[in-house]
């Protein structure tokens, strides 16, 4: 995994990389940037080649970029199969050759880097699929969150979904697997709540995390701590949670002045967070410090 942060822009068509130097105190520098014709909704680094990047483009295509090549030689490849905006892409962390894309055309597609067309299309949701995430341990399992208020767990070896969680009463905008417990999954919804589920106790909710003022756009489990997750919301804040604690909300940052739509945690540096929003800002900070300080 690359020690770099990627920033995608919705609607503003610029797609940039920033390389994070090992010491968080030095400022971010831009490594490379690509102009695109349409907005990018999500990015995923390849697990097999550290310079390859998959982009989920709002014109329905999934594009492959190589950061070692010049912007004019990119994108390397464009997979045009989805009929509507592609909202998320995720690269398989264990198998390393495949990735999934989820789209507003209600489908999820499985791809292998070397094949020109998708391997399989999962057509079960009834509305936009906002996110699809591979399980951290089971190579063939992924979860998908949709505006049809359902989270589906699928196994690529099976034709249909293996488990369905009618997770929320409103659209589910994001889901993420716990990195230490492969049966725990978190879902973020328009109902302003994050729910944490345990697959073993089928459909039993472990916890509901309240705290956001508007729909929660993204949720991510920490790669370093089993119980820690971070979320960002249309309420312009980024919240940190520890779901094993009595009062789960352990931190809130309101540095964004517009919708906060992206948040992530560094795999290499414990506690390093990054967030981005419609205010056109990207913040990178260490958990516990003020994102706005230089």
């Amino acid at each position, binding site marked *: 995994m690359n020690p770099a942060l990627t920033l995608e822009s919705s609607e503003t068509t610029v797609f940039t990389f920033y390389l994070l130097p090992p010491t968080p105190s030095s400022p971010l520098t831009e490594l490379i940037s690509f102009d695109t014709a349409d907005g990018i909704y999500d990015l995923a680094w390849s697990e097999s080649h550290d310079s390859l990047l998959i982009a989920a483009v709002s014109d329905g295509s999934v594009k492959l970029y190589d950061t070692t090549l010049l912007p004019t030689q990119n994108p390397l490849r464009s997979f045009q199969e989805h009929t509507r*905006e592609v909202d998320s892409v995720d690269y398989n962390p264990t198998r390393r050759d495949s990735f999934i894309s989820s789209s507003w055309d209600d489908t999820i597609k499985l791809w292998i880097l070397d094949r020109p067309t998708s391997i399989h299309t999962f057509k079960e949701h009834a509305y*936009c699929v906002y996110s699809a995430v591979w399980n951290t341990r089971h190579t063939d399992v992924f979860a998908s969150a949709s505006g049809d208020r359902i989270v589906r767990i699928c196994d690529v070896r099976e034709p249909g979904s293996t488990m369905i969680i009618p997770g929320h009463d409103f659209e589910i905008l994001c889901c993420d697997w716990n990195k230490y417990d492969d049966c725990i999954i978190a879902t973020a919804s328009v109902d*302003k709540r994050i729910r944490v589920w345990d697959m073993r106790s089928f459909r039993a909710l472990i916890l509901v995390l309240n705290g956001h003022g508007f729909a929660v756009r993204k949720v991510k489990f920490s790669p370093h701590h089993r119980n820690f997750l971070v979320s960002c919301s249309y309420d312009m804040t980024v919240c940190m949670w520890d779901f094993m604690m009595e009062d789960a909300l352990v931190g809130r940052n309101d540095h964004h002045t517009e919708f906060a739509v992206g948040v992530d945690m560094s795999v290499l540096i414990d506690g390093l967070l990054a967030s981005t929003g419609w205010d056109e800002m990207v913040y990178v900070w260490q958990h516990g410090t003020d994102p706005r300080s230089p």
Partner: protein
Amino acid sequence: MEKASNRQRVLLGHLRSSSAPRYNNHESSLSASACLAEGSAAYGDDVVVVAAYRTPQCKSKRGGFKDTHAEDLLAPVLKALIEKTNLDPREVGDIVVGSVLAPGSQRASECRMAAFYAGFPETVPIRTVNRKCSSGLQAVADVAASIKAGFYDVGIGAGLESMTVNSRAWVGNVNPKVKHFQKAQDCLLPMGVTSENVAHRFSVTRGEQDRAAVDSHRKAATASASGRFKDEIIPVATKIVDPKTGDEKPIIVSVDDGIRPNTSLADLGKLKAVFKKDGTTTAGNSSQVSDGAAAVLLMKRSVAMRKGLPILGVFRAFVVVGVDPATMGVGPAVAIPAAVKAAGLDLEDIDLFEINEAFASQFVYCCKKLELDLQKINVNGGAIAIGHPLGTTGARCVATLLHEMKRRGTGMGAAAVFESGDGSDELRNSRKVESINLLSRDSR
């Protein structure tokens, strides 16, 4: 646009359906409304300013430009716009020059000549506009409007005045009808008298006016000395003739020569009122009679991006209002709020103002009436110190405003100039999202 509205619909869905009964219903009243302030960026339809320059402003009849032809003031700024942006002059769709005192037809020809001196080809047209003191501002607004109307993609709004060459005399007889129409008769009032009217009607004291004058000189002197004008001033190579010997000497004028850094309240207090016995308006707290030119290059945002030109500001709104000719100075107090509103903003959203100081009385009145933060107004001085070459000032204010906004990296600016007999123009420019309100004042 359908794609965009579809996406908006999906996102709006995220915000709407979230009214869970347990929580406050503050968001149940969420609804989408049209964005008045035209958001920052994405679509290439806005009109943007990519460059703005001015000559130094010099005292008429005695200052650096006293022996300079008017067109030799305009040519350098037009040339600078082209050279500094590497723009091919053939791409300019029109040049509009605000100019007040010169006979219309002759000034129009002089402007055309200036364009040739500046290197523009015959295929680029030019015209003048006269809204008295607001002419420079009106020129910029006219170009912006034409670009928005699709008449052309690139245009120049400029201002030019040599008050050394042209004076404010009335030619011919006055129509006897004015005796029956008070307002028409008031159009003949000398500007200084309207200044006294404002001072009297709105109780602006001599002390307040002199203080405004001292501030203007102080701010301008600081700005000039610290080099804050160097990005916007284009030095002019010209000649000066010694009035006694008749010897001609080539000179380069690069600073505003009307600024008096050592002006004090005591000095100003000694001056006599000029327009009314026991009045408050003096030569010290009025704008100076000057020579100078300024020019602003505007184009469609998409063109600017294609050419990789920096965007100094985005044209947002323009308002012109009419007021009572007898107190014409009140114009900005009416036009500024109107233009701010037209841009979908509030007065507090404006970070910087350039309000023409035709007379301290009117300027002080407008600032007080609008309750503006003085720290945001004419931060680098105004017409009292810098000078007020009538047709130029509007464009000069835009240049000064945009360069200061660039230095500060701030968002919203407004320029206002007011004109006599009519009202004020307000032009709004913004960086990112900003507006410039220009009130133009015609001081006759």
